[in-house]
């Protein structure tokens, strides 16, 4: 009987879907209109206009694409180990995966955020969240390398992250799954009594970009989903959509979809800063890790952090408000002026658009419809700019073109809809193939969007590309939005499942791109700044090889005196000081990965020989005409052998002086 009622319930939206879809006159065979190749063709030797950074979803990485060509430029490893260059395998990068859960070498990366200055992209850093093991990473855009990862304690499913404020003061995040705080062994059915949701503010150092968990705000046990920060007049405020205000804990598909309205949280973080200064917080003992790469040595170090500061809205009036938002919202987006906040109810046929001025007026005049756990709930109508009625089905995310229009993806009706923010009128719609999640307009979340292109990130790719078995790449679709009508220009496959992207004019990154690391600035403890410094040292059962790589040889290229059971550390310094000349290092039978060493950098590979014999090592990056010759031999002797430790390059190893063991 119960089952039947579900079916009845679900049939309602599907009936709406059918009606709406039929009047959209959709044609899945639609390709492109007219000759658009000129618009996406970037001739050999020319550059793309924009960098687009797409999150890698379940790949745990980020990919950089060029727009408008859709060419893949680089895959940046962030939360997942990456055998292609040894990230997570080299001794320098292993610490990047330390968390309070142990070493977690994978994640689910979702939202890309570029650093901002005065509400515009400054091209310095890129932030992305790990959804599974709650953490936020920072990528340095001079090197396109992950340089920092900060874990967020006492949250689960850090989906709602890491949304940046107008001057990169903070990265705002919220827990997707509420949890008992502190963690404890309680019945799951005690959800309502025992579970709390945290909203987190990570500060970003204006000079170095270094992250620090400034404070957390304890909230009712809802699911916090997405956020944006105010800009311009709404600077200082954060807006977060939440779902499951039903506080259900089983069969959420149904039980968390009962109420017609969920809630949007509105946070005055400047007020929170004041309360923090006044000491109105609880210091809680917990555990989370901060992993940071030292710029001079290139080595990541982990620090376990043991305290966090939690602010309770009950004791801090004027800091947090709620306002109802249509059913199960997903997107929460602020327009370039900072006045309008779009709340997308993904199970609602309508979209609510709020006005910042009206929200402030409602707060001023205590226009509340009660409170939840001491948090005032603003009257829905009082904060509303208006409702965009029946724009499509399943609204998810909205971006802006800076010309007064918003573009929203509709997952269920599979389209992008363009609408006028002020007038609340739909002006254009374009089918996507198929089921778009996020979309991105270069600068579309900033004060000054570059309203030229739009990329829809589609979840389903059936029949768009040559089939590749049961799994198909997700597709991104590029639209020209410079005219009145959107125009489909290009499809291109993506890696993993991108959840959001940000795009920035190449001119803001390209001139600052680092070409190599200066060897005189290399402070790695095992650096060899020239072949004269290449050597092998034994410390107990550890053997440290100070190796150099330069076209086209490794020094030393013959090593003897290593024994079974030793831990052999190859510290390879790339002596090159030229752009695009990395060297690789691979050891026969290494149980980890090979490593890539950038010019001027030192990287360490640990190898534990398991049996006696001669082992070959070599360069893996085709560096020069004599790359194949860039190799060497390691002799491994039995544990009790008395073969002396010695090494050579270009001379007979027998002529080398025996080095006494220390």
């Amino acid at each position, binding site marked *: 009987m119960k089952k039947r009622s579900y079916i009845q319930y679900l049939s309602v939206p599907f009936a709406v879907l059918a009606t709406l879809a039929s009047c959209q006159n959709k044609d899945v065979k639609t390709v492109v209109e007219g000759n658009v190749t000129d618009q996406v063709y970037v001739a050999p030797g020319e550059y793309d206009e924009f960098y687009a950074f797409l999150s890698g979803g379940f790949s745990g990485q980020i990919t950089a694409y060029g727009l408008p060509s859709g060419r893949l430029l680089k895959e940046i490893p962030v939360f997942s180990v990456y055998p292609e260059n040894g990230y997570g395998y080299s001794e320098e990068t292993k610490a990047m995966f330390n968390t309070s859960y142990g070493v977690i070498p994978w994640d689910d990366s979702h939202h890309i955020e570029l650093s901002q200055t005065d509400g515009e992209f400054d091209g310095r850093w890129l932030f992305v969240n790990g959804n599974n093991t709650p953490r936020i990473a920072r990528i340095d855009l001079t090197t396109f390398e992950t340089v920092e990862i900060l874990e967020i304690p006492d949250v689960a499913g850090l989906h709602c992250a890491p949304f940046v404020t107008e001057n990169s003061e903070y990265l705002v995040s919220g827990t997707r799954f509420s949890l008992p705080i502190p963690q404890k062994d309680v019945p799951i059915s005690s959800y309502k009594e025992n579970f709390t949701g945290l909203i987190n503010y990570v500060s970003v150092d204006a000079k170095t970009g270094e992250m620090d968990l400034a404070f957390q705000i304890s909230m009712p046990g809802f699911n916090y989903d997405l956020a944006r920060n105010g800009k311009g007049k709404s600077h200082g405020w954060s807006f977060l959509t939440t779902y499951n205000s039903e506080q259900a804990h089983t069969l959420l598909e149904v039980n968390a979809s009962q109420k017609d309205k969920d809630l949007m949280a509105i946070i005055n973080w400047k007020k929170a800063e004041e309360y923090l200064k006044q000491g109105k917080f609880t210091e809680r003992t917990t555990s989370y890790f901060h992993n940071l790469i030292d710029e001079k040595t290139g080595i990541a170090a982990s620090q376990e952090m043991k305290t966090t500061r939690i602010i309770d809205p009950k004791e801090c009036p004027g800091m947090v408000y709620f306002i109802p938002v249509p059913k199960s919202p997903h997107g929460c987006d602020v327009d370039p002026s900072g006045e309008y906040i779009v709340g997308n109810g993904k199970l609602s046929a309508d979209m609510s658009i709020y006005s910042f001025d009206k929200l402030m007026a409602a707060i001023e005049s205590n226009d509340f419809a009660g409170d939840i756990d001491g948090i005032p709930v603003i009257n829905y109508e009082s904060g509303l700019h208006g409702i965009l009625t029946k724009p499509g089905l399943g609204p998810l995310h909205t971006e802006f073109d800076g010309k007064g229009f918003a573009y929203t993806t509709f997952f269920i009706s599979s389209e992008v809809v363009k609408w006028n923010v002020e007038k609340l009128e739909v002006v254009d719609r374009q089918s996507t193939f198929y089921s778009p999640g996020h979309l991105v307009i270069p600068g579309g979340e900033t004060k000054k969007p570059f309203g030229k292109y739009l990329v829809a990130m589609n979840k389903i790719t059936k029949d768009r590309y040559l089939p590749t078995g049961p799994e198909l790449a997700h597709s991104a679709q590029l639209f020209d939005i410079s005219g009145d009508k959107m125009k489909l220009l290009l499809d291109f496959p993506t890696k993993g499942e991108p959840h959001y992207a940000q795009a920035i004019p190449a001119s803001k990154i390209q001139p600052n791109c680092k*070409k190599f690391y200066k060897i005189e600035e290399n402070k790695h403890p095992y650096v060899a700044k020239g072949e004269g410094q290449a050597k092998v040292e034994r410390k107990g059962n550890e053997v440290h090889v100070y190796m150099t790589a*330069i*076209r086209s040889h490794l020094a030393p290229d013959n090593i003897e005196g290593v024994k079974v059971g030793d831990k052999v550390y190859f510290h390879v310094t790339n002596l*090159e*000081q*030229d752009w695009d000349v990395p060297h690789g290092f691979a050891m026969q039978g290494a149980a980890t990965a090979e490593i890539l060493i950038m010019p001027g950098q030192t990287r360490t590979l640990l190898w534990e020989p398991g049996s006696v014999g001669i082992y070959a090592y070599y360069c893996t990056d085709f560096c*020069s*005409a*004599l790359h194949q*010759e860039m190799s060497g031999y390691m002799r491994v002797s039995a544990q009790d052998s008395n073969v002396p430790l010695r090494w050579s390059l270009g001379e007979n190893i027998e002529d080398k002086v025996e080095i006494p063991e220390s």
Partner: protein
Amino acid sequence: MFIAIISLCGVFLFPLWKITLDAAQFPGGLELNIWINRFSGGEEGEYIIQNINILNHYIGMQFIEPDSIPELIYFPYVIFGMLLLGIISILINRQWGYVSWTTLLCILSGLGVYDFYLWMYDYGHNLDPNAPIKVSGMTYMPPLFGEKDLLNFYVASYPATGTFFLCGTIMLAFLAFYFSKKTQNQ
């Protein structure tokens, strides 16, 4: 004559010669600037010597080591000497003073160019017999003046701004000689 001396100082401010190496793998080419007392690269070419040496070792050319080239140390002293002699010639203010100074500078400049030629001849011809890449009959001397194909590189070698200052100095000194003659005749 005073301007001539000032102009001679230009050899410290600008490179004397520029050799450009062009190849597909080096968009924009590699630029080697030769100064009176040092070498330098073009834009971002801080490590030009190391990078040229890496390329040259395949064909067995010797490494260019600025520290081992004594001319880079004593040439500046020669210029200082000439500056001093120039001032003396102004003090003397006689025709013979100017003409001998100009002639001396011409001879020294000629010797400098010849010395440069000898170095390049040595680098281009004195190859390591064990070089990994051997092309029979090939020598790798860059042109003293002009352009030339050397394996995958197209090499262009021309005087740079510093040399033009040197030439300007010679001309100005000659003018000083010319006018001083006139004034003395009057």
